[in-house]
């Protein structure tokens, strides 16, 4: 059978020609088949993509979890940075001066501003090591030793800490002291910081306070020791200079 080649678009115009009608019908069927194929392909694609949704949702949830974990971790790191900054500043300030009075006032500033102490005392062994002087006292401490110039023992917590040089937390029976920070240089206890009361909004000492107290125990003592040695050397130097001047005059 031979068919006349016809323009399919023109087929519809041949209303009276059965061959043309047939050709048009063939074209329509062809178009319809093509449309069905396209539609089925689209359905297949949609099915495929709808199959990916749960997987994508799971990935999204995992990403969200990761983000939350990172945010938490970032907060922890920020907090840790803050703690390190505090320790750095305390250490820096303790060693920033060679004046014993300045070192003492730095110890007091650390006790108040970084630990939250309201009442405290600083005991320091005198130059010949014969007595523990009460060099500084903040607030009215209700303890038998608080009105004396030197500490001669009697508080069980303080005595124990001075003996072994270990940080001790109270209060214990017979002692109003909340914490004793022994100040040690080369394994020798040269004094102690005693805290007997915290600021009203500071409920208790925590782990972070302990870090600062440990730092104080080591660095306050060496800063005090260095400043005392420097002061002594400066005093001797002045005496020698005066002596030389006198000799020159004579």
């Amino acid at each position, binding site marked *: 059978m031979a068919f006349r080649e016809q323009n399919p678009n023109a087929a519809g115009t041949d209303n009276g020609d059965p061959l043309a009608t047939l050709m048009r019908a063939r074209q329509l069927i062809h178009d319809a088949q093509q449309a069905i194929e396209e539609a089925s392909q689209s359905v297949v694609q949609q099915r495929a993509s709808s199959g990916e949704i749960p997987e994508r949702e799971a990935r999204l949830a995992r990403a969200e979890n990761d983000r939350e974990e990172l945010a938490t971790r970032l*907060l922890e790191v*920020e907090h840790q940075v*803050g703690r390190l*900054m505090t320790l*750095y500043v305390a250490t820096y*300030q303790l060693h920033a001066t060679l004046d014993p009075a300045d070192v003492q006032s730095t110890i007091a500033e650390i006790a108040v*501003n970084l630990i*939250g102490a309201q009442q405290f005392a600083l005991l320091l062994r005198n130059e010949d090591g014969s007595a523990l002087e009460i060099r500084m006292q903040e607030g009215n401490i209700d303890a038998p030793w608080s009105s004396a110039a030197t500490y001669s023992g009697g508080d069980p917590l303080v005595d124990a800490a001075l003996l072994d040089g270990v940080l001790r937390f109270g209060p214990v029976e017979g002692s109003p002291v909340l914490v004793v920070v022994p100040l040690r240089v080369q394994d020798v206890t040269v004094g102690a910081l005693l805290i007997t009361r915290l*600021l009203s909004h*500071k409920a208790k000492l925590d782990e972070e306070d302990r870090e600062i107290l440990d730092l104080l125990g080591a660095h306050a003592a060496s800063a005090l020791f260095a400043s005392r040695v420097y002061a002594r050397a400066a005093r001797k130097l002045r005496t020698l200079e005066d002596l030389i001047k006198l000799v020159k005059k004579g």
Partner: protein
Amino acid sequence: MNAIKTRKVLVVEDSRLIHKMYEVMLRPCMLIAAHDGREGLARLAEHPDVDVIILDINMPHMTGLEFLGEVKQTPDFAAIPVVIVSTEGKEEDVARGLKAGAVAYLKKPFQREDLLKIIGRLTTDRTAPQRR
């Protein structure tokens, strides 16, 4: 964590330790230091463009609350936000500070995050029309 842009902060505080602390914690900011209320007013006159004032309460010569009163009575400075950072932490202390015109009250010892949050909020939220 709020990022702090380079801003001018007046610190009125008598503790050298805390001055150093701010210097380390508020590194992006330009800090103007004063060690009591009287010196704070002098620094403020030299730097009227400060963005925030960090203020201690217990200081020699002029206390923080006296300083705050002076600042709030001076039209040129009245709109500068003041943050009190103090060891005075009772409820009445906080209420007194806020009533005197402070925008925030932080108790010592403070956490760095809390300070940054407050300073960050004040330096980013603040808009020009608030100042005279």
